[in-house]
C-alpha cells in the first residue's frame, strides 16, 4: 500500500466486538424495530396447495373489513412490476415467468397469491381469512427423480419436461481410467433439503416520497446493493432514487441473498399508497417461502488403484431446485460439480448435473451452497474406498493430496487452487485428537462390544467470490475511506455483515493501516445511500474482497496524508511512519505531527503541498484475480449406542486453514457456528414434504435445529497458509465448518458401525434411522 506501514498491532488480536454493547442491551434496530409514522401493515395470502389452478379469488369481504386499506392479487400488478429475478445464466437454462404474486397457477405451498394492507398487523391477518380462493388441484411431484421421468406431472407445461437445466463436465478420460481401475467404489448419496432458519425472519419496510420520487427500503438482506438495482428496475424507479438499507440483520446464511416477492410487492404498495408499508415474516412463512438449501441426490463412483491412488471420478447429480428460480438457484449445484474432486489430484472426471423442477420451495444458497454437497460426495466415497481397500482413511488422503509446492494448482474441473498445504492441516488434526491412541482405544472398545467411531474429513472449498467473470452482477467490492477533519476515520463498505462482526475486524485492519485507535474508526455498511455501489456479504467474501478494497482505499488516503505531513515537517514522505495517532519520521520519533493535525490541514487547505487537492477520501473497487480455497481437516470421535441408535459426540476437532487471521475470536465464532449447522444437517435437520407437497416440517417443533444440549464442545485450531490472491493473505471462514462437518460426522458414525457391515447411513442420522440401519444389518441386510 503506502511506502511504510506501521507494525501490526491489531490484526491477529482477539479484540471483542464493537457491535455487542448495542446488541446485548436491546438497543439495536432490526427491520421490525424501525417505526415510521402512519406505517401500514402488509400480510400475504399463500397457496395451501402445492399445485393448483386458481379459478377465482374473491377479495371483496377482505376489502370491506374496517382497517383494511387495500387487497391486491397477481392480476392487479401484472405488467406493472417486473418478475422475481434470477441472476443465473447457464447454457440451455429454461427460465419460467416468476410473478411476485402468482397468476393463474400455484406451484408450491406458500406461494404468495394476494397481499393485504391494513392499518394494523392484526387486522391484516384477519383479512386473510376473508379472502376466498377457488382452487382446482393438479397432480403434484415432489420426488426429483420421479419429476425427471417421462409422464411426470409438469411444473411448467411449456417446457415439456421438468428438467430446468443440465450441466455436463468432463476432463481427461474417465471411462478409460475406470476400465483400468483395480477397484471401483460407488455410492448413492442424499444431501437432504435444509431450511436455513436465520433467527430473525425476513422483513421489509418501504417508504416512497412522492415529492422527490424516492423509494427507501429497509430489508433484512445480505445484498442491499443488488436489491436496490433490481428493485429499481422491477418497480420502475430509477436506481439513483432507490435506497436500500440493511439495518441490523439477524442472521442469513445465504437465505437473505436474494430478491424476494415480498420485497417487490411491499415496495410497489408503498409507491401506490404513498405511505410506509411494512411486512414482517412469520416463522411459518420463513419455513415455507424463504429459500431452502442442498437437496441433491448423487450417484458417484471412483476408480482406484491397489495403492489407493484415485484415478477417476464419475457422478450423476439430480438437484431438486423446487418450483421456481430465486436469484442464484441454478448456480448452486454447479459449484458441486466444480469442487467434486475435493483436495485430491483426480485427473479424470465425468459428471452430469440435472436440475429437477418439483412442487416445492426453490432451493438456493445456504451456508456452503454447493460445496458441502461436493465435500460430502468426495469425503464419503474416499472413506468408503479406504474401507474397501483395507487402508486407514488418513492414508488414502495423504496418498492423493497434492504436494504444497504444487500450488497454485489447476485441477481437473478447470479452477486453480490458490495455495495449500493439506498434509499440514491433517497432521495437526491427527495430533490434536491423538489419532493413533483413538484407533487403539476403538479396537479395545470393540472387544467390549462398544461402537466407537472416528471420522475424518479433509476438505477444500472455494470462496471469496470472486472474479467478476464467476459471479452474476460482479464479484468485486467497493470501499470508501475518509479521514474526517478531526482525524476520525469513516469507512464505507459495500459488504453487508449480519452477525460476522466486521465492524470490529475491519476496524482492526484500518487501525493498523493508519496507526490510529480502533475507537476512532467507524465501519458503515448495509446502506446504499452511504456507499452506493457494492456487492454484499456471501460466499465467505467480505474480508478477502471487501477488506482488500478498504485496504487499498486507505493506502491511497495514507499516501496523501504522508505527503501533507512531509510538507509540514519538511521531511521525505517515504520515511514516515503512522503509529499511535501520530505520523513521524522513522528513526526520529521526535519529528512528528499528530494524525488529526494532518487531517485538519487537509481540510482547512491553507498550507497544502503543491498539486494537492483538499480532502482525504478515496474509493476503491477491488476485483480479485481468483477465488480463494480454504482447506482443513476435521476429526470426530463418536460412540453409538446400538440399542437406541443414539450418537454421543466425544471429540470434535477442527483444523481450518483460512489464510491469515484478522481476529481469532471472531474466527472461532464462525467455525463453531459453521460446525453447528453442519452437525444439524448430519444429525437432526431435514425438510420433509409429503407426496401432496405439504411441508411436514414447518415449525421448530418438527424441524430440529440444534439446541445447546445437542452439541459438544468444539476444539478449533488452525494452520496458516496465506492466500496470494489478496494483500491481506486471507481466505474466508464463514462456511468452512458447515462444509467439513457433515461428512466428518457420517464417516465417524459409519466407522463406528462398520463391524456390523454398515457402509452408509443417510442424513439426518436420527436415532431412529441409525437404529433402523442397525436392525437391517443384524437381519443380514446392509444399512
Amino acid at each position: 500500500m503506502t511506502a511504510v506501514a506501521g507494525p501490526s498491532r491489531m490484526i491477529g488480536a482477539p479484540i471483542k466486538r464493537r457491535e455487542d454493547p448495542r446488541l446485548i442491551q436491546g438497543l439495536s434496530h432490526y427491520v421490525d424495530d424501525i417505526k415510521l409514522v402512519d406505517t401500514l401493515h402488509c400480510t400475504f395470502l399463500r397457496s395451501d396447495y402445492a399445485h393448483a389452478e386458481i379459478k377465482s379469488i374473491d377479495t371483496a369481504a377482505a376489502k370491506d373489513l374496517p382497517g383494511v386499506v387495500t387487497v391486491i392479487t397477481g392480476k392487479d400488478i401484472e405488467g406493472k412490476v417486473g418478475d422475481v429475478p434470477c441472476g443465473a445464466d447457464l447454457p440451455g437454462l429454461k427460465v419460467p415467468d416468476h410473478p411476485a404474486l402468482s397468476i393463474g397457477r400455484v406451484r408450491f405451498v406458500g406461494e404468495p397469491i394476494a397481499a393485504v394492507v391494513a392499518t394494523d398487523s392484526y387486522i391484516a391477518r384477519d383479512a386473510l381469512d376473508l379472502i376466498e380462493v377457488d382452487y382446482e388441484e393438479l397432480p403434484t411431484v415432489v420426488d426429483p427423480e420421479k419429476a425427471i421421468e417421462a409422464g411426470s406431472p409438469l411444473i411448467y407445461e411449456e417446457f415439456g419436461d421438468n428438467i430446468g437445466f443440465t450441466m455436463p463436465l468432463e476432463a481427461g478420460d474417465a471411462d478409460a481410467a475406470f476400465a483400468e481401475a483395480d477397484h471401483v467404489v460407488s455410492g448413492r448419496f442424499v444431501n437432504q433439503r435444509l431450511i436455513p432458519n436465520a433467527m430473525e425472519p425476513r422483513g421489509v419496510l418501504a417508504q416512497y416520497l412522492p415529492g422527490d420520487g424516492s423509494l427507501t427500503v429497509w430489508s433484512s438482506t445480505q445484498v442491499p446493493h443488488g436489491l436496490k438495482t433490481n428493485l429499481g428496475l422491477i418497480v420502475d424507479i430509477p436506481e439513483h432514487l432507490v435506497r436500500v438499507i440493511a439495518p441490523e440483520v439477524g442472521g442469513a446464511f445465504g437465505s437473505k441473498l436474494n430478491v424476494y416477492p415480498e420485497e417487490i410487492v411491499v415496495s410497489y404498495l408503498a409507491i401506490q399508497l404513498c405511505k410506509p408499508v411494512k411486512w414482517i415474516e412469520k416463522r411459518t412463512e420463513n419455513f415455507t417461502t424463504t429459500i431452502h438449501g442442498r437437496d441433491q441426490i448423487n450417484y458417484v463412483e471412483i476408480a482406484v488403484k491397489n495403492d489407493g491412488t484415485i484415478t477417476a471420478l464419475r457422478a450423476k447429480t439430480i438437484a431438486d431446485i423446487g418450483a421456481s428460480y430465486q436469484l442464484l438457484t441454478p448456480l448452486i449445484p454447479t459449484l458441486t460439480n466444480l469442487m467434486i474432486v475435493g483436495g485430491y489430484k483426480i485427473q479424470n472426471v465425468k459428471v452430469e448435473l440435472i436440475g429437477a423442477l418439483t412442487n416445492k420451495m426453490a432451493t438456493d444458497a445456504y451456508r456452503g451452497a454447493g460445496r458441502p454437497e461436493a465435500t460430502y460426495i468426495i469425503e464419503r466415497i474416499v472413506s468408503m474406498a479406504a474401507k474397501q481397500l483395507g487402508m486407514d482413511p488418513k492414508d488414502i488422503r495423504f496418498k492423493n493430496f497434492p504436494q504444497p509446492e504444487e500450488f497454485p494448482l489447476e485441477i481437473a474441473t478447470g479452477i486453480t487452487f490458490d495455495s495449500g498445504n493439506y498434509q499440514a492441516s491433517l497432521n495437526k488434526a491427527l495430533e490434536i485428537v491423538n489419532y493413533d491412541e483413538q484407533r487403539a482405544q476403538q479396537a479395545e472398545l470393540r472387544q467390549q462390544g462398544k461402537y466407537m467411531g472416528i471420522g475424518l474429513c479433509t476438505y477444500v472449498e472455494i470462496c471469496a467470490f470472486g472474479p467478476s467473470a464467476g459471479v452474476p452482477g460482479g464479484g468485486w467490492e467497493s470501499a470508501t475511506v475518509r479521514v474526517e477533519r478531526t482525524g476520525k476515520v469513516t469507512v464505507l463498505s459495500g459488504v453487508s455483515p449480519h452477525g460476522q462482526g466486521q465492524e470490529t475486524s475491519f476496524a482492526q485492519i484500518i487501525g493498523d493501516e493508519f496507526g490510529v485507535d480502533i475507537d476512532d474508526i467507524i465501519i458503515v455498511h448495509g446502506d446504499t445511500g452511504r456507499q452506493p455501489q457494492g456487492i454484499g456479504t456471501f460466499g465467505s467474501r467480505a474480508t478477502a474482497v471487501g477488506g482488500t478494497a478498504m485496504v487499498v482505499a486507505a493506502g491511497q488516503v495514507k499516501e496523501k496524508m504522508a505527503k501533507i505531513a512531509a510538507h509540514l515537517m519538511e521531511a521525505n514522505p517515504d520515511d514516515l511512519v503512522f503509529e499511535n495517532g501520530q505520523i513521524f519520521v522513522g528513526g526520529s520519533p521526535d519529528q512528528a505531527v499528530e494524525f488529526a493535525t494532518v487531517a485538519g490541514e487537509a481540510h482547512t487547505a491553507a498550507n497544502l503541498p503543491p498539486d494537492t487537492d483538499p480532502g482525504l477520501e478515496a474509493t476503491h473497487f477491488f476485483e480479485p484475480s481468483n477465488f480463494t480455497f480454504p482447506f482443513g481437516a476435521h476429526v470426530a470421535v463418536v460412540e453409538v449406542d446400538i440399542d437406541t441408535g443414539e450418537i454421543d459426540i466425544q471429540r470434535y476437532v477442527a483444523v481450518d486453514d483460512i489464510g491469515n487471521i484478522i481476529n481469532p475470536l471472531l474466527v472461532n465464532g464462525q467455525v463453531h457456528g459453521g460446525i453447528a449447522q453442519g452437525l444439524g444437517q448430519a444429525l437432526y435437520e431435514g425438510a420433509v414434504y409429503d407426496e401432496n407437497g405439504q411441508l411436514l416440517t414447518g415449525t421448530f417443533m418438527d424441524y430440529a435445529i440444534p439446541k445447546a444440549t445437542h452439541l459438544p464442545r468444539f476444539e478449533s485450531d488452525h494452520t496458516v497458509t496465506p492466500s496470494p490472491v489478496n494483500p491481506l493473505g486471507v481466505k474466508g471462514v464463514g462456511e468452512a465448518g458447515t462444509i467439513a462437518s457433515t461428512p466428518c460426522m457420517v464417516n465417524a458414525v459409519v466407522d463406528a458401525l462398520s463391524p456390523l457391515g454398515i457402509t452408509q447411513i443417510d442424513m439426518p442420522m436420527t436415532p431412529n434411522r441409525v437404529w433402523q440401519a442397525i436392525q437391517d444389518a443384524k437381519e443380514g441386510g446392509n444399512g
Partner: protein
Amino acid sequence: MANQVIHTAINGQEHTHEVEPRMLLVHYIRDVVGLTGTHVGCETSLCGACTIMVDGQAVKSCTMLAVQADGAEIMTIEGLAQNGELHPIQEGFWECHGLQCGFCTPGMIIAAHQLLQRNPNPSEDEIRHGLDGNLCRCTGYQHIVDAVQYAAEKMQGSRERKEV
C-alpha cells in the same frame, strides 16, 4: 370483545394502556410501550427470542396475552443494565463472544438470568439444559456457555465479597 385497561411496571416504570384482549404481550411491549429489544422469532414459544421476566419468572412473551400481564412487574433486556453498568451476564456475552447476529441474544440473556437465579453455580451440562428453550443459529452455543460461566463466576465473586 371490548378493549381492556392494563397496568404494568416494566423495568421499574409504570405503564397504563388500553389494549385489545387478543394482543400478545410481546407486541404490547414492542409496539405499544416501544421497547424493541425483545424479539419475535417464531410466535410459537419454541425459539425463546421473546423471553422476558414476568413477576420473577422467565416467560416467552409471544404466547402470553398482554391482558394476562395486568398488574405484573416485568423486566426486559433493556432493564438489565443498572446505572450504565452492564449486568455480569451481558458482560460475559461480550467478553466471550457469546453472540453473532444478536437476534436471539436478549432472550438468551434473560433465560441465563433465570438460570443463574435458580442455580448460581451451574455445571456446563446444567447451563446447556437451562438454555434448551432458546435457539441460537449462529454460535454453536459454546461461547454462550462460556459467557454464562463467566457471569456465574463474576456474580459468585461479588456475592462472596458482600459476605466478607
